[in-house]
Structures are given as C-alpha cells and as structure tokens.
C-alpha cells in the first residue's frame, strides 16, 4: 500500500505527513502527528469529539481523509491557546465547570469558537443547535451553554 505524502498547515505550522489512503484526518492527527486532543467517540460523525476546522469550516475529522488535507489549513484544540494564554472560551469553561469528564471538551471548544467567529451574539437556542453535533453525556449541557453565552458577551464587551 503506497502511502500518500501530504503537505498541509496545522495550527499555523507547515506540516508534512505520510498517510494511507483510507486513514482519516483524525487517524492522522492522533496516530501520525500525535495530536491526541481530538478524540474518537464514534468514528461516524455523530458525536463531534473529533471536531477541527478545515479552512475555517467546522468539520468532524473522522469524516475527512488525511489525504484531503493537502494544501489546506487545519486547526485543532492544540492550537486554541496562544502560548500561555488560554482562549477566552477555555478560560470560561474552567470558571463555569462546563466540563466533567472532559473528553467531549476539545470538540465542543473548537465548535464554540467557530460559532463565535461567525456569530458573536448567538441566542441560547442558536448555541444549542450549533452544538447539537457535540454530544456530552456528563453535564446535561447547561453549564456549557452558559459558558458559551457568557464568553460571547465578554468578547463583545472587550
């Protein structure tokens, strides 16, 4: 099986990797690049734990092939904080106890960040529908939704 050579950008860093044709972007991130912050909860696009952005668009990395990354820009949870500074959403999730086990958290943060970039003033309902593809089994979503709404308000005020 010939491997494919892919040149891409991940979290702003020019990155090259070799992958097999059937390897998903998630497989590549986790197994080849050791970026294990993106999680596999289902492998079928139903849980959102593997959420990344692909040229700024929110996607499930389990539903893209690694080979498709050629020439594109990928952002993962590992690129969300800037140096020592957490992204405001990361900080707000900590303050609001918006995570329990934490396994869905990277995906939810990536998704929430994509939301606020598109819509800085979402309603509760808009946040809930935007995040409907990110399953959380621990929190009942309450504190997650509050954290996103409050972070949006803070960021608008800033």
């Amino acid at each position, binding site marked *: 099986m010939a491997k494919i050579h892919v040149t891409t950008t991940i979290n702003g860093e020019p990155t090259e990797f070799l992958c097999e044709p059937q390897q998903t972007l998630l497989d590549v991130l986790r197994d080849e690049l050791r970026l294990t912050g993106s999680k596999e909860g289902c492998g079928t696009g139903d849980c959102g734990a593997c959420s990344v952005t692909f040229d700024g668009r929110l996607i499930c990395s389990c539903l893209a092939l690694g080979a498709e990354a050629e020439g594109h820009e990928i952002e993962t949870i590992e690129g969300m904080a800037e140096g020592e500074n957490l992204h405001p959403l990361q900080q707000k999730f900590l303050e609001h106890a918006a995570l329990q*086990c934490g396994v869905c958290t990277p995906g939810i943060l990536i998704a929430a960040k994509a939301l606020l970039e598109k819509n800085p003033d979402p309603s509760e309902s808009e946040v809930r529908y935007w995040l409907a593809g990110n399953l959380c089994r621990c929190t009942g979503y309450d504190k997650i939704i509050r954290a996103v709404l409050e972070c949006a308000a803070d960021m608008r005020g800033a």
Partner: protein
Amino acid sequence: MASENQELKWIGTSPVRPDGTDKVTGRAKFGADLMLPGMLTGKILRSPHAHAKIKSIDTSKAEALPGVKAVVSAADIAEMPSEWVPAGELQLNYRDLASNIMARGKALYDGHAVAAVAATSAAIADAALDLIAVDYEVLPHVIDVEEAMAPDAPVLHEDMFTEGVTPTPDKPSNIFKEIDIGIGDVETGFAAADLIVERSFKTAPVHQGYIEPHAAVASFAEDGQAELWCSTQGHFTARAYCAKLLGMDVSDLRVTASEIGGGFGGKTTVYVEPVALLLSRKAGRPVRVVMTRDEVFRASGPTSGAANWVKIGVTNDGKIVAGEAVLKYQAGAFPGSPVQPGCMCAFAPYDIENVKVKGYDVVTNRPKVAAYRAPGAPIAEHAVESVLDEVAKKLGMDPIELRQKNAAREGTNAAYGPKFGPIGYAETLAAAKAHPHYSAPLGPNQGRGVASGFWFNVGGDSCATMNVSEDGTLVLATGSPDIGGSRASMAIMAAETLGIDVADVRPIVADTASLGYTFLTGGSRVTFATGMAVIEASKQIAEELRQRAAKIWDISVDAVVWEDGYAKPAGANAGDFEPLSIGDIAAQAGKTGGPISANAALNAQGAGPGFGTHICDVEVDPETGRVTVLRYTAIQDCGKAIHKAYVEGQIQGGAAQGIGWALNEEYIYDEKGRLDNPGFLDYRIPVASDLPMIEAVIVEVANPTHPYGVRGVGEVPIIPPMATVANAIEGAIGVRMTELPMSPPKVLAALDNGR
C-alpha cells in the same frame, strides 16, 4: 485545626479544578491517547449471532498473516469456578466474567467476543480478524425478559437452576434468582385501602453512553510483571479482575487509570483490559485495544430492561397502607441484573407498614448488563412514582402533598431493612412545593410532572497519601479515578481541614503500585469515602506540623495549635513566637525529623442515603407525538456540597440522562437478535438542542458520619426523571404512558387510542 462548626472557607465554593487546563487544551491523556514504542494494535472478533454454539475456532490463517503477533481466544483463559465478588453496587462472578471476556463454548449475544488479534497495524489486525474461521451452530435466541421466563424459552445456561425458590427446580431456566423483600402484610394493608391503583410497566435497556470508548494499553515483561493503562472507574478493581483472569499475583500488575471519558457505572468492570494483557503476554510487546462505538453498544453496558407491576393502596386521606411490586429485570447473557437494589429501592422513599416486592433476575441473549448510575433504582422507582401520580390524581390531592404525607423521615423503618438516620426527603419535597416552577402557569398541550427518587449511596475502602513538599505546597494522592471533578473536591476538603489555600494542594490519582487499595469510583462514594481518607490524612499532617513547630520553638506540643494554616502558640503562656506556615515548617523539615508525610487508609461506613425531587414541564405536539421538555428543576439533598458547581453538574447530568431514558433511548434488536442501533445516530442520547437549562437546587441535610456532612450525589438525579416526564405527559394529554421510551410513535398511538 478547622473544626466542623467553624465558618467554612472553601467548602461550598467552586474553584477551578486542578486538572482543568489539561482538559481544555487537549493535553489530558485518556484511554486511547497513550502510545508506547513497539506498540501493537489489538482487535476483537465478535459473534454476529445472538446465540450460537461455537463448534470450532481456526486461527491458523490469521496467525500466518505477516504482521500478526498474537491471537487469543477463550482457550487462553483458565476456566474459573463460580465465585461472586463485590463489584460496585453489584456482584461479579469470575466464571461469568471470564466467559464474557471471551466466549467459551457458546456465543450468548450479538457482539460477544470470540477471539482477538494483535498486529503491527490496525489494517493488518482487521484483515487478521477476517481470516479467523469460527464454525457456529446458530441456536434459537431470546431477547425479551418475559419471553425468556416462559417455560419453552431457549435456555442460555444448561446449569442454571433458579435460586431463591424451594425446592430448587429440577429443570434449568433463564431465571437465575428470585428475590423477596417486605415488611408487614400487604393483604391486610390492601383490605384497609379506600383506593387501590395497579399498573404494569415496561422499560427498555439503556446504555451509559459515555463518549469515550473502552480503551486499554498493556505491557507485559518477560518476568511476568505487567503494566496496564486503562479508562476505568476503578484501577484497583481492574487490577484484581485482570490478575485473577490471567492467573497473576495481584502485585505483579501495576494499573494506571487514564483520564476517564465518562463511565456512569459502565467502566466498573473489565472488557478490553484482560484482552490487551493476554495479547501482550503472548506477543511480548505492548498492545493497545480500543473499542469502536459499535463494540461499545454491542458488548458493554447497558442496564436492564424490565417488566414491572406495581400496586398501591391508600386511604382517602392519602396515607399509603400497602405497596406491592413484581420486578422482572433482564441481566443480559450472564446473571447479575440490578434487580436486588431495585427491589430494595422501590418503596424506600415512603413510610409504609406493608410492603411486598418480588424480583426476578433473568438472563437473555443481550450483552451482560453493567452498573448504570443507581443500578436498578430508576427502573423500579419509575413504576412506583408513576402509580403514585395516578393515586394523587384519583384522590384529587396535590402529588407533592401525597408524597409529603408518606415521606420517610429519620427513624422510619425502610422496607428493605434499616432504620433511616437523618435524611432529607421531606426537605426536597418542601423545596419543590415552594419553588416558583411548581406554580408557574402552563399553556395548551403542556403538562407538569413531579417525581422523587432514593438511593443508598455507599462508602468502602479508600486511601489517601499527603506529602508536604519543600516549599510547603502539598501533593495529595488518592486512588479514585476523577470522573467529574473529584480532584477539586479532594483539594477543597484538604485545604479546609488544614486551613490553607486550595491552590496549594495538588491532587493526583495515583496508580495501584503507589497507594493502598481503593475501591472504585461508583456508588456515589468518592467525595464521601475517599473524602474521609483525605480529611484523615490532612488531620495527620496538621498534627505532624504541630509537632514540628513545637520542635522548632522548643516547647511542648500541647502548647502549639494549628489554626488557619499556621502553627501558633496555644496562648500567652506558650511563649511569644511568630506563627509558622507550612512553608516555614517544610523548609526546616530536615532538622526536625525529615519529610512530612501522612497516609490514611480506611473503610468508610455510614454513607447517607440521598433523595431528590424533580419538576418537569413538557409540551406534546398532538399531531406528531413529539414531547418537548420546556423546563426542568431538580432538587436534591446533598448533605453538604463540597464543590458547588460540580454538585450542580452531577444533578444536571443525571437529570439529562434520565430525560434521554424517558424519551428516546432504547436498544433495538432485529428478528435475528442483532442489535439494530449500535451507534449514536440511532441510539438517541439527548443533544444540546433537546434540553432546556436544568435548574439544580441543592438542599443540605448533613450526613452526621462525614466530618463535613457529605452524602453521595451522583446517582440520585437519574432516578426521578422517567416518572417525572411520564407524569408531565399525563398532565399534558391525559394519558398514562407505561412503556419507556415515550417516543413519538408511542405517544401518538396513545393519544389516538385515548388509553
């Protein structure tokens, strides 16, 4: 030392959890995140049949495939005698555990593990599974609990003769055990009743639905010692189970608990852990086994589905005079459903003189059930709380008032045995009644329901080690995997007890070689039991710090007090010394006796029972049967909330799971006994847009056996939702739903039939 009566500085606050940053940056390592040099990928071959004799397994072609380093099957696990051991709130039988890990002789459900391979890549491992030839003889199967109890049902275990009946039957059946619980005489009770309501109910098996699949990495050394990394609620119990299955000395196996991506009871047993160890032992290399989501649904969890019947008799003034129930729980392929705790919990919230509960533990061709949040209780209490709602309607009485009239209180003899100590059921009912939610107006097609729940909570074995670092900060090690913020609770209790800043305590979860035996994270026991070990260790540290201060000051230890994080002279007579902080004392530890360290090991007794009362508003679309949850309030007695936000989180999360159980979650089998919905697409757990905010109301009736009054919190909130939602639907459409889930086709059919 901070006495329990003093004003609390940390308890009840919500500081940022110590492991939080790792979890918002993707740095935290979960089960599948560990990679070792030379690591192989392990994969498991599973039965496609619900019930089949395994005539032969030929692994030779798989073994010959380049890149395959080991193949294992049941032949690699020694046969175990039947032996029951405690496992969380349930019991576990080693013989059955071994046969569940790898099918022995028969495959008993779709997804039952039959063989496993370890290979140099996932693709090779998959190819190897295709090369394993299993010769099955398909047998008739049975999925439904009542069909499994029928005399002509296909029998799963030829050696199963119902326990708990005399004489023991001479014919094998699928009924493993009958259970009888009761007090008083229900016949007399019902004879005195002015109103009797009885109903039959069905509940579907539901999965714990943790987002992280089971995962384990095992590494066996040539000397027979091994290391295991896994996503588990109990690495000490995982060590015990795995050592037993592999015939190892317990101390030869060192288990590290990875960060755990949810468990809810489902990670209190082992599935992939022994398989990874078996493969690693055979291959001589590290092996990682990670379940797919499909495997999680087909081969782990769920909790029982059940067929229940409940009868309640009351007098016209609302006094319950008798309660009777028959509970039939399916256990999956091996015995051990949570029907026993179900029987015990059914009427536990109420002070009733005459109670009779009969339970059946029944095997079916489904995955062996695992613990799920208050195992057994939600299934039984759903039936009782639904019937109570109907009783209240028929009496024309407010449903909270009916419950208040009969609520168990301190001193009540519970039907399952003990006399209750201080409990907070009445307080949750009063809080529910007074809550603005309860009197808010409702619109058309809307209804409001209330229901309550009870759970025992448990204590048990826990250890804690506390080490004072040279700069006066502390490392606090416990053996309780942190499933939802318990590191923060441990740090809070340590800081409170020592009177120091919570940020000076660094809590960690230590591996099995670094700490004494600690029972698993389950039974709502960690904040209570491990918390007691932490408080005990903190007290030891405070005592040691007094000793050291006395040495530094060269005065009697009796003349030193530990107060607000400082050693101080006890009074004017003790001398005039500047107070010493932990840092001051730690800096001189070498001169005063060496490192400062404490270890607490205890078996915590006296876990306080927990009660909750929930209120829910729904709207039913009369044309489609869709139920929308509009508003939800969950009130619970928590004894004492240590980390307030995480206590709220437990309540909110439990309620959300219960709403899923009520409305959409279920295992669906096809006619061949194959699971038809083994994924998050068709196993429908609530998504963010399905739910409203869930208001958590904390009531605090202290548990006197815990220094700060803690009761377990995590399990109670999943008990009330099913009946709460059912009662709300009844309020909206005037029809009593008796089958879970109350999915749109069922609700619409009920509306059409006006049942």
